[in-house]
């Protein structure tokens, strides 16, 4: 089961309510795009959902959270740390196993970063780092994706390629997106957030980009 049904979601900052209270029910197979102005509460909502559904999800936080001193391989492998024993993880840190190398390399090929596999992420560009964080989420191999602006630093064709990959790899997803065209093309449900509340919730085939623009 990769869907969830959450209610009473709310968050305050400095005594001021920034989100909710709101309810969100996502069924398996739904690909939800969260849209809305910056500061509307999209990131907070992603964070709250992650707190509720816990570790059975693949996460792409906005600040990526990469360990810059480690190479691309290790940053991707980190998505499965909780699926291996501690000694396996520690050995991998020193010398990765062939099967894992092959799996991560294959994934990085799809994201066009295979040649950077052993380079520390500190020396990558913003778009490359973003793809490493996406690779970690895919490598984690959960059915539910929670992603906060996962393609904001990617150029046009690359953004489409990654969004298609995410659509195919995850049964269910909740993705905060500021690009309305991408939201309509790769998601089947659009949730518009305004001032911390749900202002719009429709299947994407019933919406056009002008309908969404009213939120901005």
């Amino acid at each position, binding site marked *: 089961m990769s869907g969830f049904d959450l209610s009473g979601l709310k968050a305050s900052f400095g005594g001021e309510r920034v989100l909710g209270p709101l309810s969100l029910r996502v069924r398996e197979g739904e690909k939800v795009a969260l849209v809305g102005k910056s500061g509307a509460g999209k990131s907070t909502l992603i964070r709250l959902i992650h707190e509720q559904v816990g570790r059975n999800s693949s996460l792409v936080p906005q600040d990526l959270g990469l*360990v810059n001193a480690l190479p691309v391989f290790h940053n991707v492998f980190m998505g499965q740390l909780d699926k291996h024993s501690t000694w396996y993880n520690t050995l991998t840190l020193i010398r990765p196993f062939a099967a894992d190398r092959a799996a991560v390399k294959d994934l990085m090929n799809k994201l066009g970063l295979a040649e950077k596999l052993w380079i520390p992420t500190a020396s990558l560009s913003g778009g490359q780092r973003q793809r490493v964080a996406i690779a970690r989420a895919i490598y984690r191999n959960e059915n539910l994706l929670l992603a906060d602006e996962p393609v904001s630093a990617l150029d046009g064709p690359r953004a489409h390629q990654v969004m298609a990959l995410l659509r195919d790899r995850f049964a269910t997803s909740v993705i905060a997106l500021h690009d309305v065209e991408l939201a309509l093309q790769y998601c089947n449900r659009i949730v518009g957030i305004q001032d911390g509340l749900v202002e719009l919730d429709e299947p994407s085939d019933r919406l056009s980009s002008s309908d969404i623009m009213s939120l901005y």
Partner: protein
Amino acid sequence: MHSYPTVRASLIFVAVAVVGLLFADIAITASNPWRDLGNFFLGVVTPNFFSSEGLLTALLRTVAFAFVGVALGSFFGFLLALVYRLLPVRIFCAFIRAIHELFWALIFLQFFGFHPLTGVLAIAIPYSGIFAKVYSEILEEADPEPRRLLPPGTGMVAAFLYTRIPDCWEQLRTYTAYRLECGLRSSAILGFVGLPTLGFYLEASFSQGFYSDAGAMLILFYVLIATIPLWVRPKLLPVYILAAPFFLGEGLPIVWGNVERFFTEDIIPAPLRSGEGLAGMVPWLGDLMVNEALPGIWNTVLLTQIALVATGILALLAFPLISNHFGGPVRRTSGHVFLVIARSTPEYILAYILLQLWGPSMLPAVVALALHNGGIIGHLIGRQTNTLRLRPDAPTGFNRYTWELVPRVYRSFLAFLFYRWEIIMRETAILGILGIYTLGFYVDSAIQNIRFDRAMVLILITALLNIGVDALGRYIRRKLALQTMPTC
């Protein structure tokens, strides 16, 4: 991983230390070390604060020597920092700070005797060299922009006071406060060569087996250091500095004849003194090198390399104790107490205690150096991990340690470790006074045998060795592009 320069450098240092262990004299030679250790800890938990009135006097003297020494060191260090660009000044400062406080004390003892001046200069001279270097680094990092925007024709002094000092003030203040803490430690160990500070009292209690007295002294010392923020207030500082010279004690008067004899006779190499001339110098120096300097250098380098790696391992093991990425408040509080005790105890005192308990070998020295320096570095990188914000789905437990934290702090860990390399070597040399065959042992024996000429050459060699390691440490830090703050 092996292709990382930082990892490769670490592995080389570990390999050198492992090979060094084969040659090192590591053993517990005392007949009943654990009973002695037990008695000592029993003494610490049953401290006796009232055995003699000497304890409070010793505490007062320790503070007084620290204040006068650090104040003078800071004043002259600041003046030197202003002209630190000049190469002769740099060399001079590197030289005076390469000689340990205790060596300076041993030198001054020979001609000033047990006069307070001996203790004051023993702290003030090496501290001037350290202050000069760090102050100049801090001043150099000031933002140059405000200075460029001053009206043309602004005087140098005004420009300095308006654009440099305000920008650096906080850092200068923090560093000087940190050095005051170091000064208290230096002042305490000056007692081991006979000055009236805590070390003297500790040695006396220990040698008679009065562990409760020694425990009381250690506890008072920790309280003194831990409460520095409470009793060292900016407004009270002038009072302390003006009052401190009056609490140094009388000591013994200086015999000026001794001073003259020291410089005109004692330190002149024996062959020159006896008129053999330069021809006699070659066998004299050869004998000194083969029988004292080379064994001393070998043991000093050996012990330094083992202690350096032990320090690193301990720091990496200890930093999670205070990191808020692990465990609960109880464990963190006890972790803090452990690290504060480890870094507040001067390595000399730790080594002295462990030597008494375990008997003479390199082991007490390695443990003492690792505990003190590992405590300092562990505390610094532990605090650094507390500024890191991890992803909400970050791994926990040992995986968090190995995958999230160690890779992020490893570079600064190495920077701190290489920064302390020279400090560890300085201490290693001085621990020879306690009977480990490092350079300090040969210096001390030469002084005991009233062969000051030999002692001076050995001290000179020690200083050059320290300068060499300092340069090597800086080269490695630059090569690995490691950056560090001077407050370590």
